[in-house]
């Protein structure tokens, strides 16, 4: 969450594009890893 806040402040201040995109990418990966951590069971669904 703090990573997201830092990224948002960088985006608002318009600091270097590379820094914004890198931090945003790291935040996205961290969010997906958290998602992977919290998804612990398969669902009993047939498609």
């Amino acid at each position, binding site marked *: 969450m703090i990573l*997201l806040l830092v990224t948002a402040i960088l985006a608002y201040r318009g600091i270097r594009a590379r820094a914004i995109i890198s931090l945003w990418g790291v935040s996205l990966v961290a969010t997906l890893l958290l998602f992977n951590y919290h998804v612990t069971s398969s669902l009993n669904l047939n498609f």
Partner: protein
Amino acid sequence: MTTTSPATSDASVEPTLGSYPIGNRLAFWGLVVFIAGYCVVLLSAFGIQFISHEFPCPLCMLQRYAMILATIPIVWIVAESLRGRLTRVTYLRSLGMSIVASVAGSIMSTRQILLHIASKTDPGYGSAVLGLHLYTWALITFQIVIVYCGASMMLNGQAIPEAPSSPKVQLLARAVLWLFLAVLVANVIAIIFLEGFSWVLPDNPTSYHLLHQF
């Protein structure tokens, strides 16, 4: 005004920034409304959390993160536009980032919807708002963002955000940006109270862990 050289045909000429003033202004205010909309969504989630005393589950928090991830690139576009430094590359890149975050958010919402659909006796997590649970609303907002950003990319030749020149009107857009940053700070404080000294939220939170740890 689009300029053409004798060597190029009309069909191949790309409009320059600011070629369509009305479209540019609409694109700018559309993105300000985008940020304001997600501020309302995140504040509503806070309302349910604090007024109805419903604690957000880990998947709910992850969907909030995805909403924030989808909004940050839009904040970048609006801020750069207010400075008069917005380029087409930054504009298209940011819309792409927003789409990627929305797809990630859609996956999380869909997972939570399926989780509660799987059991016929499961009433769903939390209370419903206008007949739908918050994670279903979240999925709808992510789909709207994907469609909006995709349409903006299609129309980028006709409309690229351009901030109004009046400082008073610019202040309105800046206020929305500050509101978003304030909502983000509030979320940081809320997650610290929810998680306490743990790295992750419990699967079914029932209290603010930090208060118990003290």
